């Protein structure tokens, strides 16, 4: 499912003393099959943007859009696959089945008595007909297995007895159990220890490979972005500043730092090396960085001999 947003704007509490503009004229296209990153400060509009993608926040009605067109402003388009999200009549429940959304700290949305019941919640909600116990078991087993949990061992446990990392994986399983084509995750690794972070990122790769076609992550952690994403968008004050593959994006380290954002460790190292007169070019993944450094080293060695 291709995601196309054009001239998308959104204001919270419009027409009240608390109004806050979250998105200003955002245009962004995410192709099917991408591992897309969204970076930005708190309050830059990134969460607001992703919540648009499964209709949790709606674009203004067609009436308002007509007014906008008359005022000479460009018209908003927002489509996910064949779903037109600017149309009120769109079946948003059907859309949500295809666009899975994992919120920040998803473990806080667990509620059922058993892990199985919790994971099956979305499955039952989206099912066209009543599912048999075997069908539920099968889908839940598959979802739990892909997040690295053993179905037999955990299905009857209370989700509240699990460890933090396990809870988060159960919560993710509860979203992917319907096999969405697009999976959106808001800070999937927030609050986890380094090992937990690595496990979550490995899980996302597994999901991207053979479960969900498109994966979109919202993240503060630039290393996550540089290591994993095909492209990344940088949000600042409700606007999209850059949409680039990490290899090109982190060439703009100075601009990013000026925006108050971090850059990946590899970009910091490349910068420090440049300051010492060592010019290396790499794609800012750990592996790419190592290859570039080794290539430079061999070249120097070759020249010295």
């Amino acid at each position, binding site marked *: 499912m291709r995601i196309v947003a054009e001239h998308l704007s959104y204001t*919270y*509490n419009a027409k*009240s*003393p*608390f109004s806050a503009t979250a998105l200003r004229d955002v245009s962004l296209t995410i192709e099917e099959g991408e591992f897309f990153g969204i970076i930005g400060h708190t309050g830059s509009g990134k969460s607001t943007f992703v*919540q648009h993608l*499964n209709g*949790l926040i709606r674009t203004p009605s067609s009436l308002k859009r007509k007014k906008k067109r008359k005022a000479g402003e460009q018209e908003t388009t927002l489509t996910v696959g064949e779903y037109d999200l600017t149309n009120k009549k769109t079946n948003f*429940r059907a859309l*949500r*089945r295809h666009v*899975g*959304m994992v*919120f920040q700290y*998803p473990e*806080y*949305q*667990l*509620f*059922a008595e058993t892990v199985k019941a919790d994971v099956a*919640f*979305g499955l039952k*909600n*989206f099912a066209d007909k009543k599912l048999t116990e075997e069908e539920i078991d099968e889908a839940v087993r598959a979802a739990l297995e892909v997040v690295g949990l053993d179905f037999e061992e955990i299905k009857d446990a209370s989700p*509240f007895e699990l460890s933090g990392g396990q809870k988060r994986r159960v919560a993710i399983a*509860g*979203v992917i159990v*319907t096999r969405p084509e697009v999976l959106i995750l808001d800070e999937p690794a927030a609050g986890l220890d380094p090992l937990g972070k690595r496990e979550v990122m490995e899980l996302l790769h597994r999901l991207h490979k053979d479960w969900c076609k498109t994966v979109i992550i919202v993240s503060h952690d630039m290393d996550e972005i540089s290591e994993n994403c095909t492209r990344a968008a940088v949000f600042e004050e409700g606007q999209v500043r850059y949409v680039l593959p990490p290899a090109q994006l982190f060439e703009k380290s100075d601009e990013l730092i000026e925006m108050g954002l971090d850059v990946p460790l590899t970009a910091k190292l490349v910068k420090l090396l440049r300051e010492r007169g060592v010019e290396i070019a790499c794609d800012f993944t750990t592996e790419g960085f190592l290859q570039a450094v080794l290539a430079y080293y061999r070249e120097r060695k070759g020249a010295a001999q």
Partner: protein
Amino acid sequence: MKDVSFGQYYPTKSFVHNLDPRFKIVFLIAYIVAIFLAKNFYGLAACTGVLILIVLFSRVPLGKVLRSVRGVLFLVIFTAALNIFFHPGEEVYWNGPAVYLSYGIIHVTQAGIVFSLFLVLRLVLLVTCASMLTYTTTPVSLTDGIESLLTPLKWVRFPVHAMALIMSIALRFIPILMDETERIKNAQKARGADFERGGLFKKVRGFVPILVPLILSAFRRADELGDAMDARCYSSGKKRTKYKKLRFTWRDLIGFFVMAALIAGVVVMRIYLGAPL
């Protein structure tokens, strides 16, 4: 984050906003007394005048002020209807028959119409003045004001400070929990939960996926807050200092004169001006 505003505080800077919350609470009580002391329309006119002054000096938009009456609109209409139809009386206030209709227990009289107008005005003034208090005072300073006014109860060992603390924590947590509710609701909606479809039973059951995480989170937050307060050695027994000290200013003095003039005026009118009503 659909509705960050909570309660009806209208944030702006104005004369009325800057008044001491204690004074505003006392004024509201005095105003209610004045409304009930007023026996005729002159008295209510004085009350209306003062209220108009308050609204003007508070810079709260008129639309918002009128909206506060909407909540009691049913009560207003009910009161008016009751008195128009069931108030017997022979008084004549304008040219025409004193009694328009008299059938069984139903009496539509001039006296009834006038009296119901009187009651409606009273009710509207009461509600509007009360909401002016909440429009111009943040919940936190309202709590501070109540705490300060209740200080005398400390002499009878009533835990005024603890009560005020409980109140302000509760107020503080309302927007947080509302935010949390919205987030959990969105998360469950993303998993296909539907809060609109189905009969009553299904709808009520549909709230379980919101309520369970919400209650858990409320307990978690309460625990964390308790720990944080303990870590900073909070205790309500000691004499505590305030970040924002309540202080009477020249504004409150002006307000006090307005209040005194209103009460005096209403009492004088009650004694010397009998009619109408």
